[in-house]
Structures are given as structure tokens and as C-alpha cells.
């Protein structure tokens, strides 16, 4: 919906390339774009106001790094401030000194509490814990059954007592957890409106009796401006310890995350990213910042690349890419360099403007394991084959497959992919010529 903010900023600041400093007017113009992007991402308008003022203050007068254009400098400040605003770093679950650690999940109807409870339990289980989930949603039809089915499917223990007072279920679950030696107890509560006094009191009552270590608000990433009202209300009545953001696998920018953190001060601890039970991760503020801004994470890519890449080699490669002289030899070299930066897909995600070629990327579907095979295959080629892949005939293919412990199909696939990749780079250097030229030496 919104063109990548970084592009907009670039155009807003196009005339500033030669200047060493940003004027207040330039910054104001650029920040107007930031403001629109944030509002479009559902960041609360009050939060946006404060945020823009803060960035403005920092941007004016700050010296511009030599290697970056002023536009990028603003992006960098925005990104940093936003990351800071979201907590700066990942905040882990607190663990109680007295077992079990009780985690209470609360939120509006349909925000994803039950799914989250199962995902969190699975996540804990994978990390060597023994979680127990208590079914405290006695209102929604079939909520308890849903949890029981999910528990069975995912081999997670579920504690239920039917439709009794939720506080009694929680007490019973606590007893059960102690008896069984579970080190985590997750309370799945019913969805409720923050303005429903009776149901909010029910949560407060559970809190009084159980004293959970963590009270996490489950927030739908698609929530709009109302997110702050909801979060404030829950926080006031329960003193939240954190937030879990769900349904982030869609195309929402998730500005609610920023708002909720800014208003309550509670860190976002986890994010839900899909229908699968394993689609659940600790939250990373920096990634979220880029997402909200609708731009690739170019800054961390630059930083990472700067830290791990040989600049000389990079320049050489860039030339080769543009002249279509890219060979398997270079490819191997790149693979080794890229591995230093991080997972390939992640790198591609960090590139702005890769959206258009992402379909081709999916076709390439490069995963880490495949990379090992790829390396082995290339290593089994002769030098001549690496420089001139077109000479690889079927007997050479057989030899390469044997040598690398893969199959002829694998070799064929790589050859085909290499062809596609060459084509793609050609496209990228044509379409994104500016990108390659503008960041000389940064692109791997």
C-alpha cells in the first residue's frame, strides 16, 4: 500500500547528496513521510507525534556519516529510535524462583490466546521445559475442547476442569503442575473486552490467588489505533509484564506493537508468525522497526556486510555481475563470504526492492542445507568447468555427482539455478542499478 519509506525518503532528500548537513526544512520534509508511513502502519497517532519530535531533535545538527547520504542518515536515526522505543533488545520470559513459573495470557476475543498458549508451550518444551496449559476459558463455546485437541495433537499436557470458576481451575492447575513437576504453567483465559468490568475483575482475582510471574497481553498485529486503549486498560487493571504479538505472518505492518510498547512500557516478548505450532519466535525490535517502516533492513545488512566482507572482492564482484562474467568460481567465493553474514534468505529479505524478484528467489529456494550440497558440487568441478559451465556434459555431470556425493539431478538443478541466478542478478543490476552503484562495495 505504501511505497517503501526508504525510497520516499530518498526522493525527499534527493537534492541533498552534496550537502554535508541537513537543514531543519529538509528534515521536516523527510519526517512528513515518516509520519505518514507510521500512521499507515497503525502506530498510534499520539505515539507518532512524540516519536517524530524526538527524531527531529536528533536529526537536526547531527553530522552525517561520510559514506551515507543524508536520506539514509535519517532512516538510520528513525530505525534506531524505533528499535529503542520497542525495547532495543529481546526480552526473555522471567523465571520464578519457586516452580512452576506461571504465565497468564490475556487479551481481547480473537486475538489468538489459545493458539499462542499452545505455541508458547511447544516453544518451552523444545527448550527443555515441561509446561502445563490450563484451560480457563469457560465462556467461548468449545474453547476447552479446542485446547484439548491441540494438546493431544502436539503432545502437550492440558489441565481442564470443565466450566468451573476460572480461578478454581487456575488453582487446580497450579496444584497439578506442582504434583507433576511441571516448571511452567500457562493460563489460557477467555477473551474479553477491556471495558467489561466483571470479566476484568475475574482476571484480577486469578492474579491475586495465583500470583503469576508473567502476565502477557496477546495482541493481534492487525489492531488499529484502539490498541493503546486496550493495552492501557489491561495494564491498569492487571499490571502486565509483557506482550505477545500474533498474526504477524500477514501483510499488516504491526504498528500496534510500537504503540503498545510505548504506552505501557511492557516489552514485546514473542511473535506468532503462522498457523503452524512452531511458527513462534522471540521478538526482535530491529526487525519490527524495518517492517513498520516498510523497508528492507538495509542498515543491518550494510553493517553486517561491512564487518564481514572483503571490500576489494566486493568491488570486483560487482563489476563481474554487471558484465555478466559471474562464474561458479565467484559463486563459491560468494557462498563462503555470505555465510559469514548470515542465512541467505535473511539477507535477501534485508534488501529493499527485492520484493519484485522474491518469486524467483522462492524458485531458487536456497536453504542452508542445500548450500552445503552446492558447495560440494562446485568443489567437485574442475577449474575449467567452474569458469565455463556450458562445457558440463552428461558424463561430466555423472562425475561431479559422484564426487560430491549427490545425484545427477542435484547437479542439473544447480546448473539450472545458476543460470536463473545469473539472469536475476542481471535484472537486479539493471533495475536496481542505482542500488549497486550507490553502495559500491557493500553488495556481496
Amino acid at each position: 500500500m505504501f511505497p517503501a519509506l526508504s525510497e520516499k525518503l530518498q526522493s525527499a532528500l534527493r537534492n541533498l547528496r552534496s550537502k554535508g548537513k541537513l537543514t531543519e526544512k529538509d528534515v521536516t520534509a523527510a519526517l512528513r513521510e515518516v509520519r505518514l508511513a507510521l500512521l499507515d502502519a497503525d502506530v498510534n497517532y499520539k505515539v507518532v507525534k512524540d516519536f517524530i519530535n524526538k527524531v527531529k531533535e536528533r536529526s537536526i545538527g547531527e553530522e552525517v556519516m561520510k559514506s551515507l547520504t543524508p536520506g539514509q542518515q535519517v532512516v538510520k536515526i528513525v530505525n534506531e529510535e524505533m528499535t529503542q522505543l520497542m525495547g532495543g533488545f529481546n526480552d526473555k520470559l522471567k523465571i520464578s524462583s519457586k516452580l512452576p513459573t506461571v504465565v497468564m495470557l490475556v487479551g481481547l476475543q480473537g486475538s489468538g490466546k489459545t493458539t499462542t498458549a499452545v505455541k508458547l508451550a511447544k516453544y518451552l518444551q523444545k527448550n527443555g521445559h515441561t509446561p502445563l496449559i490450563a484451560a480457563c476459558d469457560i465462556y467461548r463455546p468449545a474453547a476447552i475442547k479446542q485446547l484439548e485437541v491441540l494438546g493431544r495433537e502436539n503432545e502437550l499436557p492440558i489441565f481442564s476442569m470443565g466450566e468451573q470458576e476460572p480461578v478454581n481451575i487456575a488453582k487446580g492447575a497450579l496444584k497439578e503442575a506442582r504434583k507433576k513437576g511441571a516448571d511452567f504453567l500457562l493460563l489460557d483465559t477467555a477473551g474479553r473486552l477491556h471495558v467489561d468490568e466483571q470479566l476484568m475483575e475475574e482476571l484480577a482475582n486469578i492474579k491475586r490467588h495465583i500470583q503469576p510471574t508473567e502476565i502477557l497481553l496477546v495482541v493481534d498485529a492487525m489492531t488499529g489505533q484502539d490498541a493503546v486503549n486496550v493495552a492501557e486498560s489491561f495494564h491498569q487493571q492487571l499490571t502486565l509484564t509483557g506482550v505477545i504479538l500474533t498474526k504477524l505472518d500477514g501483510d499488516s505492518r504491526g504498528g500496534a506493537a510500537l504503540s503498545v510498547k510505548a504506552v505501557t512500557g511492557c516489552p514485546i516478548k514473542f511473535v506468532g508468525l503462522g498457523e503452524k505450532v512452531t511458527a513462534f519466535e522471540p521478538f526482535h525490535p530491529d526487525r519490527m522497526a524495518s517492517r513498520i517502516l516498510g523497508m528492507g533492513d538495509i542498515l543491518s545488512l550494510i553493517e553486517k556486510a561491512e564487518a564481514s566482507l572483503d571490500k576489494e572482492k566486493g568491488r570486483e564482484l560487482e563489476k563481474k555481475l554487471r558484465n555478466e562474467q559471474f562464474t561458479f568460481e565467484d559463486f563459491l567465493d560468494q557462498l563462503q563470504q555470505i555465510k559469514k553474514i548470515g542465512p541467505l534468505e535473511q539477507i535477501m529479505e534485508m534488501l529493499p526492492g527485492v520484493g519484485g524478484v522474491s518469486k524467483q528467489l522462492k524458485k531458487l529456494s536456497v536453504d542452508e542445507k542445500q548450500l552445503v550440497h552446492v558447495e560440494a558440487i562446485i568443489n567437485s568441478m574442475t577449474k575449467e568447468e567452474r569458469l565455463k559451465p556450458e562445457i558440463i556434459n552428461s558424463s561430466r555431470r555423472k562425475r561431479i555427482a559422484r564426487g560430491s556425493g549427490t545425484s545427477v539431478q542435484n547437479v542439473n538443478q544447480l546448473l539450472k539455478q545458476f543460470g536463473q541466478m545469473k539472469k536475476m542478478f542481471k535484472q537486479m543490476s539493471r533495475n536496481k542499478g542505482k542500488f549497486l552503484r550507490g553502495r559500491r562495495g557493500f553488495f556481496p
Partner: protein
Amino acid sequence: MSILNRLKIGLQKTRFNFMGKVEQLFYRDAIDEEFYEELEELLISGDIGIKSTMEICDQLRQGAREKKIREPQELKEYLKKLLLESLNTGSSALATSTDGPTVILVLGVNGAGKTTTIGKLAHSYVQKGHKVLLAAGDTFRAAAIYQLEIWAARAGADLIKHQPGADPSAVFYDAINAARARGADIVLGDTAGRLQTKVNLMEELKKIHRVLQKSLPGAPHEVLLVIDATTGQNGISQAKLFHEAVPLTGLVLTKLDGTAKGGIIIAIKRELGLPVKLIGVGEGIEDLQPFEPQSFIEALFSLDKEQNTK
């Protein structure tokens, strides 16, 4: 209790937060830049979205100039008119089939309130003397079928279901045949929640739609997208992508009993022309109402000053 009253109660919190401030705004002395800035913020805080907000403000400015409006109160009437025009599409009544059962398909993202909406809708049809059949098309989410079963029992409707994990299209095929055999005149189809960006799940919807069309010419007669009132700008993407997959006939705005403003429907209407047909204003089985733009806007603006100062 009249529909208007229920709506008013349901929207009370909305009014306190949103239009309460709008009222204050219109008690200002003059229409100046500050006025428009505040209005812009208010509209944005109602999830109307930056694009629609700017358009509305521009229209207001232009209207004020052309009609020489200088009093904020006068401008308020004009804003009301604008918003009403934004939402007005004639009747919000659901289509009925003259030939065979009326099929209503209900879609939406996860957690929007599809199953609950169907339960309430079934109740309202049964109350009006219809024979209603529910199709448990959410074969994916654990216990979704069971959840619909409970609603069917509450509402007094029949239910067609398959095993969890079954092809939802097959459920609908059976439901149409069952409706014919049993003489049910309303078929309400539940579907699994899906994010609009999941290509394969949207394909599944297309298949459901094809199967319905084939099983019963003219079906589905209504395709309703359920949108949670707390939804922000993603609502536009939801409406757009669902509409691309299966032609929608309208929206259901749920959970309007919270503090959320549901302003996204204004943006959706302006950008895609999709009207709201029903609104959910509570958890009770009765809490589903036809959407009436006039009452909606009137309810939003009908604050008296005492409430306003609360």
C-alpha cells in the same frame, strides 16, 4: 429494546472516545488550521486511515469555502453529511433467493468472529420463522466444528459437518443437497479463518465458491467478510484481497461493543465500495444488528453535553 437504542448502547464507548472529542472540537470558536489538524488526528484515531482522512478534510475545506461555512457547528453538519454519503448504499438487507435456499458464505481472517456471527445470524433467521442449516466449513481449527454445533443447538438450526481436516468444499456440497432435501431455506456457511496473504488458502475459498455456484445456480447469494472493529489499516488489505478471491457482497463489523471505532469501514467503503451489512455489538445471541448508516452516524453524533464532559 429498539434497534436504535441497542446500537446506541453498543456504540456508547465509541462515542465517548471518538465523537466525544469531535463534539468538543466543534465547540471551538473558529475554523482554522489548528481545527483541521485536530480533526485530522481525530479521524485517524478512529482508524479511518490517512488517505481517507485527508480526502475527507480536503472535501470539508472545499465545502467550507464554497458554502461559506464559518461556524464549526455548521461544518459538523457538513461532516455528518459527508460521512453519511461515504457509507450510504441504500438497504443493508441481505439478499434472498426466490428459487431454492439462500446461501450466505461467511469469510474472514483468524479471530474476526465468523463463527459467532453465524450463530447470531442463525438465531435471527430462526426467530423470523426460517429453517436454517449451518455448514461447518471450518474443518481446520481445532474444535471449530464443535463450536458451531453448540451455536446450532442454541439457535435451533440444523448442522452439516464432516470430519476435522476434510475438504470444506465437500461440506458445502453436502450442505446444499441437505438443504434441498430438508427444505431449509437459509444455508449459513462457516469457513476457517485465514490471512488474506495466504495464497493456497485463498485458492481454497475460490474452490468453495465454484462448488457452491455449481451445486446451486445463483449461490452464494451473499458473501460476507467479517471484520473486527479493532482492525486498523490492514482491514483495507483484507477487504481487497478477499474481494479479489471471491466477490464479496458486504461486510460484517464485529466487536463494536469495545472502545474500537471501526472507522476502517469508512476507508473500505470509499476505496472498494463494499457496504457494511451487519454489526456485532455484544456477546449475546441477539447482539447482531443490521447496519444502518443513518442511525450509525446519528448515534455517533447524538451526544449531549453532559455526556461529553464526563
